[in-house]
């Protein structure tokens, strides 16, 4: 890939900001707009920007494809696992109230974990999609 100074400098400046914003959307979803799905998409957008500017191989060095597959499964398992934990604690499936000492603490913890699972899965799947499409045309 032909080096492009302006693109490199600007994207190196933007990518950390995008990732911080994704984390903000992820963990501030209880209070403002956003949540796991949006955060996952924004996070994957940062990596895709990196891949667009620095090339697909550099991006796959940061997050290899096999790690992405594990992450995509892990997020879904985290979500479903929270439900199993609440079952074991004697409540209904995905009834977070028993996770904490009080109902509100339990709900907070449950929503946080579940949104984290959503975010991880969505980010990983979006990157899997992009890597699959972008890696297709090359030999």
């Amino acid at each position, binding site marked *: 890939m032909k080096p492009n100074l302006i693109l490199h400098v600007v994207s190196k400046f933007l990518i950390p900001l995008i990732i911080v914003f994704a984390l903000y*959307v992820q963990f501030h*979803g*209880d*209070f*403002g*707009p*956003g*949540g*796991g*799905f*949006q955060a996952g*998409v*924004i996070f*994957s*957008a940062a990596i*895709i920007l990196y891949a*667009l500017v620095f090339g697909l191989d550099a991006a796959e060095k940061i997050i290899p*494809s096999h790690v992405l*597959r594990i992450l*995509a*499964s892990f*997020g*879904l398992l985290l*979500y*479903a696992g929270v*439900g199993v934990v609440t079952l074991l604690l004697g409540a209904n*499936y*995905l009834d*977070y109230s028993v996770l904490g000492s009080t*109902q*509100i603490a339990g*709900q*907070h913890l*449950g*929503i946080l974990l*579940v*949104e984290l*699972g*959503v975010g991880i*899965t*969505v980010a*990983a*799947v*979006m990157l*899997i*999609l*992009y890597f*699959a*499409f*972008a*890696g*297709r*045309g*090359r*030999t």
Partner: protein
Amino acid sequence: MIDILINVTLLAFLAITSVAILRMTNLFAIVMLYGIFSLLSAGLFVVMDAPDVAFTEAAVGAGISTVLMLATLALTRSRKRGHEGDYEEKPSRAHRPWLPLAVVGITGTALVYGTWDIPGFGDPNAPAQTHVARYYIENTMSDTGVPNMVTAVLASYRGFDTLGEVAVVFTAGVAVLLLIGGRRPKSGAKVKSEGGEDEA
């Protein structure tokens, strides 16, 4: 008043974008217009006080799907078939516009007729507001302590639905991997053994 002005402007731009998409033959420009269409929709959602939906529309519709469509274009070609250079479509077979036009006209009339029964935007007596929405509005803070009601409904009250949605996203990723994923063949000799590993 200003809301109406913004709504009319955004909807007019949406209509203009749709017509432009219909009339264009350069797929690259069409993909860009799809992104603009999504961004305008996101603006409309913001005006309708639905920032969560607007967020998703802007990130997915204008961001990711545009990149994915561009990546697809890189694999295929960027012009419609039969438009290599000339913009005039040659009528290769008998093209009868009347049947599709009639179907579209009847469907459109039926849809417009259907909107007469839809309650007005933000109508407090609409069925959607009187059923479970009232319960959510009154009890979200005491049940979950989460100020953003959308998050509370998505993650807690409707946790099953969201679990299903995540499963759908995951399944989509698996499907793409099965269809066009796998390791890229780096050199001809190694292709077979690596392909076998992937399927195992």
